[in-house]
């Protein structure tokens, strides 16, 4: 045998010798190609015509033209990611067919090939006017799987045509019927045990009449997965075969657990695109980005379809057909992330789409926005965090693109907008929602990360620095709510450093001033809670002056007026704490006019109740300190204001807390006037609300503090009334006090208030002949938080405790007996 085809066996293949020489680097470069003799290139290939001739023989002859048994390939119709499609002639009868040859190979008699045969048998049994007929299939001579299918000259929907585009989607009813027919075809296959698994526009072909026909059932992806040939769509999608843009969450998840409802999801993506003209997620999104985008969509979908259409001008006022609102519900249900919440079959989806056309009632359950939000929070404990990551990731990407992109401003603004949405969600959505506390931290931390990252590529960018400062501010609030004032101060101070310089940057000055005011106020709050009233006042005053400037600059800016209101409010209460009646009066006198002005400027504003509530409570506190008698009336008015709010929005945390707080104050005022029964009723209601709030979110320390005080007050009132009624028992109070660390997280202010309540309660118990119980309660409180008081106070309380214990000792026998 010869050593190899090195020689020059025929003139035709004379290139062998040339190849044998190492031609050197330069010879391999394209720019040298025009030289007459290229040692690396086979002879004759410098000439275009000669090369073309040889190309045709290489490409045309052997590979494919005789590769599919019984067929003659006429011409290539198209090339897809995994297959080439040819127009072919069936030799037996001359019929024109389409032959699809997959770009992979499998050995005959292999497991994959046997599976292919079984799949083919199933596919050949699918007979439906909406399904592309599969005539036969097998392996080509070169062991590529091929399918012989019905040839449809109408071509595929390359993309879903937006409604109103010329063609089959010109009118709403026609487009919906087209879509429903796609659903029918898919359902037909489902009923025969075939899941499509790769529904997308390019798999929907149109026949000569424009009727849709679905192609490629299951088979392409099935085979690709069998052979292990996977398309590297993106770094994080290794192992996924198919079109990401239309795939359901479960299809791209780790389990690859796909069923008919996965096709329903893909149909939902088609419908969304049909209605809005844009894909649910960008076609080039990575797997992670799209999963997260879908989660966001799940929450906001219903209004989104309409908004998008309006924004894209697809919903002109003079349109002959208005898009029925019901479609939103249909899209939302088809796109539900949890397949249990989706339409359970393509037939159900088709039925609802036709119901919209005919104006019949839907099967889809429409969730109210509030229920959806609550469900979302309950159902996706981590989705919120992931959602934040997605948004942040996209935004970060967008900002990185800024440098390169020509439309710098647009992208940039978009990125910041996205982050703005994220932050608003963090604040509005989760701070206020009952049970939403847990998500806030994750959201904020990921947002902060994103800003830090972006600042590395755009150092000093004012908008990014502002964003970071806002994150820090919100994070500080979170730390404070979690009972970590030191961490809160650290975050606030970092925010403050940026904000003080940012207020001088015209582009962001307005927002920076607002953030500066909020930060100062929050620092003041922490200081006040720590008992450093002078520092608190300094910060409040600075915030006030910032707010005054803002309000002067924009007299109609409700936000600035609102901030101004609360700065006055804080200063007033601080003055009350220092028993500066005149200072408090001056501050409180500003409140009502501001509240009126805000109400006049924006009567619809949801938070207005809180202003009037605060006015009443502030004056009530002032009256009380000024010795003008109990402030029951004012408190009752405040109670009425907040109660209305609670009734209209029972899901919000803050009004309920305020209600409990004002009921507690009302109870105290009533008790002072000797209206013990009413006081007990109000205190018990406050307690009930607080117990609910604590159950929903145990991490809020102000709830815990107020609940303890209310417990003590209820116990005291019960004792005073001589009833040991139902709601609070001394055991429950003692158990609460005995909980490890339950008191140590309280702020200094709360500790002082709690000590006062404990003292009052203990004395009441002693007066009612129960000094032992009073002593135990006071002792428990003192043990945990006694160090929070001044030395004088502690000595006094210790003396009270000693007295109680002595009295208890005198009547020890009797009390012991009474307890049993």
């Amino acid at each position: 045998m010869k050593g190899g085809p090195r020689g020059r066996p025929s003139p035709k293949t004379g290139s062998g010798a040339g190849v044998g020489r190492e031609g050197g680097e330069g010879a391999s470069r394209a720019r040298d190609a025009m030289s007459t003799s290229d040692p690396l290139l086979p002879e004759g290939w410098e000439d275009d015509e000669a090369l073309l001739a040889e190309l045709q023989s290489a490409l045309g002859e052997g590979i494919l033209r005789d590769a599919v048994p019984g067929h003659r390939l006429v011409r290539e119709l198209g090339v897809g990611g995994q297959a080439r499609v040819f127009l072919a002639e069936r030799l037996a009868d001359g019929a024109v067919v389409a032959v699809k040859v997959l770009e992979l190979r499998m050995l005959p008699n292999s497991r994959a090939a046997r599976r292919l045969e079984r799949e083919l048998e199933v596919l050949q049994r699918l007979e439906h006017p909406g399904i592309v007929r599969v005539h036969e299939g097998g392996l080509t001579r070169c062991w590529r799987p091929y399918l012989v299918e019905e040839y449809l000259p109408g071509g595929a929907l390359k993309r879903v045509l937006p409604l109103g585009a010329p063609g089959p989607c010109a009118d709403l009813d026609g487009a919906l019927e087209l879509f429903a027919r796609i659903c029918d075809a898919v359902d037909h296959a489902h009923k025969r045990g075939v899941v499509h698994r790769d529904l997308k526009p390019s798999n929907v072909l149109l026949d000569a009449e424009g009727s849709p026909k679905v192609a490629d059932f299951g088979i392409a992806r099935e085979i690709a997965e069998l052979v292990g040939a996977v398309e590297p769509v993106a770094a994080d999608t290794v192992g996924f075969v198919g079109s990401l843009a239309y795939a359901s969450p479960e299809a791209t998840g780790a389990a690859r657990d796909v069923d008919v409802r996965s096709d329903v999801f893909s149909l939902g993506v088609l419908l969304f695109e049909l209605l809005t003209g844009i894909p649910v997620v960008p076609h080039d999104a990575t797997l992670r980005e799209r999963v997260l985008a879908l989660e966001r969509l799940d929450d906001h979908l219903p209004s989104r379809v309409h908004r998008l259409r309006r924004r894209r001008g697809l919903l002109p006022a003079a349109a002959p057909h208005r898009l029925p609102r019901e479609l939103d519900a249909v899209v939302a249900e088809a796109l539900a992330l949890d397949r249990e919440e989706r339409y359970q079959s393509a037939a159900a989806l088709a039925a609802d789409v036709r119901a919209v056309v005919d104006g019949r009632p839907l099967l889809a359950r429409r969730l109210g926005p509030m229920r959806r939000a609550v469900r979302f929070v309950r159902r996706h404990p981590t989705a919120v965090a992931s959602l934040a990551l997605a948004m942040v990731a996209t935004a970060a990407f967008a900002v990185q693109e800024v440098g390169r992109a020509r439309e710098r401003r647009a992208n940039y603004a978009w990125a910041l907008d996205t982050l703005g949405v994220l932050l608003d969600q963090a604040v509005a959505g989760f701070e206020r929602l009952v049970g939403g506390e847990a998500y806030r931290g994750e959201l904020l931390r990921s947002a902060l990360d994103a800003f830090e990252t972006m600042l590395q590529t755009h150092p000093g960018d004012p908008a990014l620095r502002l964003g970071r400062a806002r994150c820090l501010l919100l994070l500080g609030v979170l730390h404070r709510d979690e009972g970590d004032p030191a961490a809160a101060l650290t975050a606030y101070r970092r925010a403050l450093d940026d904000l003080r310089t940012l207020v001088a940057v015209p582009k962001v000055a307005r927002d920076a001033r607002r953030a500066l005011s909020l930060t100062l106020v929050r620092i003041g709050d922490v200081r006040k809670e720590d008992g450093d009233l002078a520092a608190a006042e300094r910060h409040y005053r600075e915030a006030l002056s910032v707010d005054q400037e803002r309000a002067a600059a924009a007299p109609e800016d409700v936000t600035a007026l609102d901030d101004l209101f609360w700065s006055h409010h804080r200063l007033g209460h601080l003055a009350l704490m220092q028993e500066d009646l005149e200072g408090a009066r001056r501050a409180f006198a500003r409140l009502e006019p501001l509240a009126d002005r805000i109400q006049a400027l924006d009567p619809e504003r949801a938070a207005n109740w809180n202003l009037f509530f605060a006015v009443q409570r502030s004056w009530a506190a002032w009256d009380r300190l000024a010795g003008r008698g109990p402030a029951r009336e004012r408190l009752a008015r405040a109670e009425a204001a907040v109660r209305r709010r609670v009734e209209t929005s029972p899901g919000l945390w803050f009004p309920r807390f305020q209600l409990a707080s004002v009921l507690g104050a009302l109870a105290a005022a009533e008790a002072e006037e000797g209206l013990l029964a009413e006081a007990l009723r109000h205190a018990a209601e406050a307690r009930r609300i607080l117990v609910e709030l604590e159950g929903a979110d145990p991490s809020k320390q102000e709830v815990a503090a107020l609940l303890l005080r209310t417990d003590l007050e209820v116990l005291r009132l019960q004792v005073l009334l001589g009833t040991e009624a139902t709601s609070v028992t001394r055991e429950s109070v003692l158990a609460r006090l005995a909980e490890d660390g339950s008191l140590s997280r309280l702020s200094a202010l709360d500790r002082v208030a709690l000590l006062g309540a404990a003292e009052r309660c203990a004395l009441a118990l002693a007066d009612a002949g129960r000094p032992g119980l009073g002593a135990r309660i006071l002792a428990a409180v003192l043990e945990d938080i006694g160090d929070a008081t001044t030395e004088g106070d502690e000595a006094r309380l210790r003396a009270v405790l000693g007295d109680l214990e002595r009295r208890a000792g005198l009547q020890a026998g009797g009390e012991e007996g009474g307890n049993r």
Partner: protein
Amino acid sequence: MEPARPDEPTRTALLRRLHGDPDAEAWNEFCTRYSELVTNYCRRTGLGADDCQELFQEVFFALFQRLPRFRYDRSRGRFRAYLWRVVHNQAMAIRRRRGRRREVGGTAWVEGQASADHPDAIWEEEWRKHHLRRAVERLRRELPSRHYEVFRLSAYERLTAAEIAQRCGTSVQMVYKLRSQAMERLRTLVRRQIEEEG
């Protein structure tokens, strides 16, 4: 040399991967590369369709066994020669087996119509086509689809520049330009392939 596209490992890299620990993915890639070449060659040297499939499997099996020991070394011989030896040996082995079986039956052992060309020449020609197919495949992925379409219509359909211009809605000059760019790129790709594997 230009850097290889990340989605298409160079043959050298492929062979290195095969050497030592041939993972399934590399193997699949290897089959995709060379099966057409091997099959075409066998058909032209006179083996029937069944024999071709058998040989195909044998060659793969043989390569699979040998490649872990085969050190790819440009200076010591090209992959083209190496593969040809394996294929040729396997073809001879099949013929010998077939021959013994046929001798019993007394019929000719050659089933298909063997080409008049020398096996070396056939291999050489098929190797050229192999390079062209690979390069075109890569070109298809590299070029924008419109650009590739111009090339495809020239190479597959043999349409004239005027016809292509009409079909693609562009000028004849543009067609010439795009086509010659594509051909130039094709040559570059072929050169690179030849440098790598002979």
